[in-house]
C-alpha cells in the first residue's frame, strides 16, 4: 500500500503513509490513483481489451475498448475513493463508531438474539416461505455451513490452530455413512454417531504429526492432509468407487419410518398427503438440531477446563505448561472434537444428497468454511452465522449475474476484510464476569457472546 506518496510530506507519524495533517493531499491522491489505473490498464489490455474470436475456421483478434476503458476507470475511481477514505480514517476518532456501538448492544443481548434466531429458524418451514422447496433447500445448505463453521471454530477460533484441511473430516463423515448404509443397510440414526466418532479418530490421526507445528507450517500440513484424503477417495476404487462416487445412498427416515408413498410411511401415519417437501423439512430440522448441538456444546466447553485450555493454548503455550496444562491433550482434543462435528455434518450431507463423490470435498470447501470462521470474527459464534449466510446466500442472490457472481462474491469478501480486518464480530466476550458493585463475590457465568 505504501505508494509513491510515502514520506513526501510525512509528519511525525512517518509510517510510510500519507500524513493526516493539513487535510487531504489531492495531488498525491490523484497521482496514486493514476498509477493504479495505469497498472490496471497494462493488465487488462491483454485480458479485456483484446479478445480472440472464432469466425468460421479463422481466429480473429477483436478489440473491446469499452470494456478496457471501463476497467481502467473503475480502478482509478476506486483507488481515489479508497485513498480519500483512508486519509479520512486516520483522523483521531471521536469515540466508537455507530457500528461498534451496535456491536456492543448485540453483545449485551446475545442470548435474546440467539433465541429469536432459533425461533425464527424453527417456524420458517411453517410460514409462507416454507412451501418453497428452493428456500428450504438453501436454508438447509446454509445450516450445514453454519454447523461446519462452528465445528471448525473450535479448532481455528478457540484453539488457534489454523486448519486448511477441515473438509477431510466432512468427507470422512460423508463416506462413512454412504459406505455403511449401502453395504450393510444400517440406518442413518445409527451411523450418525459412528461417523462423528470416526471423524474424531481421523482428527487425532491428523493431530499427532502436527502437534509441534503452528501457524504457517500447521496450515500447510493440514492442507496436505485434506488433499490426501481426497486423493485416497479418488484412487481407492474398490471401496470408494473412485471419481464416480457412491450413488443410491439410502434416504433419511423418520426414525425408521420412510418418506414415501404408500402404507406405513410418514405421510400415511401422520394422515398427511404425500409431499416431497416433508423429507426436505425433516432434513432441515435435523441439521438445525445438529447445528444447535454444536453451538451449545462449544459454549459449554468454553466454560470447562478443556475449553479454557484451548483458548489459553492459543495465547501462550509455555505459560500453559507452567500452569499444568498438557498441550498434547489440549490440541488433540480440539482436533478431535472439531473433526467430530465435521463428521456429523458430512454424514448429514450424504444422506441428504443421496450421492457423493470426491468432487464435493475439494480444497475450495475447506477454504469456504475457513472463510466463514475468519469473516465472522475468529471465535465468534454469531459471526459464523452471519458469515455463513453471506457465503451461502450471496452467490444465490447473484445467480442472475451468472458468470460474474463469483467475482462479486470475492469482491464483497475483500470489502469486508478491508472494512473489518478482524472479522465482522471480532470480539471475545469473557466467559466469566464478576460484579464489582456488591461487596461479596458472585461469580456470574456470562452467556458466551458472539
Amino acid at each position, binding site marked *: 500500500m505504501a505508494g509513491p506518496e510515502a514520506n513526501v510530506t510525512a509528519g511525525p507519524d512517518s509510517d510510510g503513509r500519507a500524513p493526516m495533517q493539513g487535510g487531504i493531499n489531492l495531488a498525491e491522491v490523484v497521482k496514486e490513483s493514476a498509477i493504479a489505473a495505469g497498472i490496471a490498464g497494462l493488465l487488462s489490455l491483454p485480458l479485456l481489451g483484446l479478445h480472440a474470436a472464432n469466425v468460421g475456421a479463422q481466429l480473429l483478434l477483436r478489440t473491446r475498448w469499452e470494456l478496457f476503458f471501463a476497467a481502467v476507470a473503475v480502478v482509478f475511481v476506486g483507488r481515489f475513493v479508497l485513498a480519500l477514505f483512508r486519509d479520512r480514517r486516520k483522523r483521531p476518532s471521536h469515540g466508537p463508531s455507530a457500528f461498534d456501538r451496535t456491536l456492543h448492544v448485540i453483545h449485551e443481548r446475545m442470548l435474546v438474539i440467539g433465541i429469536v434466531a432459533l425461533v425464527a429458524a424453527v417456524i420458517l418451514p411453517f410460514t409462507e416461505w416454507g412451501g418453497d422447496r428452493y428456500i428450504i433447500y438453501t436454508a438447509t445448505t446454509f445450516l450445514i455451513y453454519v454447523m461446519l463453521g462452528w465445528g471448525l471454530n473450535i479448532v481455528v477460533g478457540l484453539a488457534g490452530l489454523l486448519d486448511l484441511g477441515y473438509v477431510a473430516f466432512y468427507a470422512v463423515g460423508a463416506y462413512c455413512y454412504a459406505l455403511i448404509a449401502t453395504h450393510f443397510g444400517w440406518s442413518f440414526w445409527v451411523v450418525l454417531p459412528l461417523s462423528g466418532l470416526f471423524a474424531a479418530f481421523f482428527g487425532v490421526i491428523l493431530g499427532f504429526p502436527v502437534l509441534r507445528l503452528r501457524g504457517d507450517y500447521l496450515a500447510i500440513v493440514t492442507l496436505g492432509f485434506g488433499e490426501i484424503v481426497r486423493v485416497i477417495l479418488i484412487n481407492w476404487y474398490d471401496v470408494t468407487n473412485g471419481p464416480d462416487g457412491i450413488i443410491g445412498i439410502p434416504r433419511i427416515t423418520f426414525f425408521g419410518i420412510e418418506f414415501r408413498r404408500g402404507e406405513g410411511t410418514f405421510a400415511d401415519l401422520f394422515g398427511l398427503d404425500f409431499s416431497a417437501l416433508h423429507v426436505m423439512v425433516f432434513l432441515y430440522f435435523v441439521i438445525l438440531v445438529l447445528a444447535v448441538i454444536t453451538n451449545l456444546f462449544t459454549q459449554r466447553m468454553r466454560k470447562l477446563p478443556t475449553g*479454557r485450555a484451548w*483458548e489459553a493454548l492459543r495465547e*501462550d503455550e*509455555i*505459560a500453559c*505448561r507452567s*500452569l499444568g496444562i498438557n498441550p498434547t491433550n489440549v490440541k488433540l482434543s480440539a482436533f478431535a472434537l472439531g473433526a467430530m462435528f465435521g463428521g456429523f455434518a458430512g454424514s448429514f450431507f450424504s444422506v441428504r444428497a443421496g450421492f457423493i463423490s470426491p468432487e464435493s470435498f475439494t480444497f475450495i470447501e475447506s477454504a469456504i468454511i475457513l472463510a466463514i470462521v475468519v469473516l465472522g470474527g475468529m471465535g465468534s459464534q454469531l459471526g459464523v452465522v452471519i458469515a455463513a449466510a453471506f457465503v451461502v446466500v450471496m452467490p444465490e442472490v447473484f445467480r442472475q449475474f451468472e458468470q460474474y457472481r463469483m467475482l462479486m462474491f470475492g469482491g464483497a469478501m475483500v470489502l469486508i476484510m478491508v472494512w473489518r480486518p478482524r472479522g465482522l464480530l471480532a470480539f471475545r466476550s469473557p466467559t466469566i464476569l*464478576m460484579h464489582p458493585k456488591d461487596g461479596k463475590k458472585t461469580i456470574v457465568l456470562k452467556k458466551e457472546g458472539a
Partner: protein
Amino acid sequence: MLEVRGVHTFYGQIEALKGVDISVEEGEIVTLIGSNGAGKTTLLMTICGNPRASRGQVLFEGEDITQVPTHHLVERGIAQSPEGRRIFSRMTVMENLQMGALRTGAAHFDKDLDMVFDLFPRLKERRDQRGGTLSGGEQQMLAIARALMSRPRLLLLDEPSLGLAPMVVRQIFDVIREINRSEGMTVFLVEQNAFHALKLAHRAYVMVNGRITLAGTGAELLANPEIRAAYLEGGH
C-alpha cells in the same frame, strides 16, 4: 527442598549451563543474579524440564524430577512466573487467575482469590479487564498472582522487576517478602535488579556464563566489592 546437581543444558551445540549446582531450602528466598545471557532463565526452565538437562539432576523434595513432564510439576507444588510474564492477553484478569487454579487450586478458588486480591488490590479493581490491556506492572502482578493460584510450595520467578518503575518494583518485592513471611512460601527469584534482590533474599547465587561463580547470604553479596562493581555500581 530444591536441589540442582551438576546440570548441563544445551541449545543445539550451545552449552548454556555448564554444570550448575544450587539448593533452595524450605521457607527461603533465594535469588540468582547475573548479567544478560548468563543462563538464568535457562536454569529456571531446566528446573521445569523445558529444555531438559542433558546431564545432572534436579531434585524436588527429595524426588528426581529431571524427566518429569513440565505440565506435571504444578501438581507437585512448583509454580513459575516465566520470563516476559506470558499472561493470556485476550482473557480477563479473572480468567487468567482461573487458569492458574485450573489443576490444583480449584477447590480453594474463592479463598485464594481473596488472598491474591489482598496482595494486589490493583488486580481486584481490574478483574474484568483483558490481560493484554493491563499496564506492565499490573501484568507482572497478574503473572505472580496466577502462579500463586495453583497453591505452590515453591515459587519460581523470572525477572519480576523487568521494565517496571522503581515504585512498582518495590511493591512487587514487598509482596514477595510478604508471601514468604506469612505463607512460608519458598521462592527462587531470578533478577537483574541485584540491589533489591540481594536485600530481599536470604541467600543468593551469582551466575556468569552458565556457571555459578559466587554464593552467599544476600547481605554478604551486597557487601562484596566484586559484586558491587559488576552489578550494583551506576544504578540504584
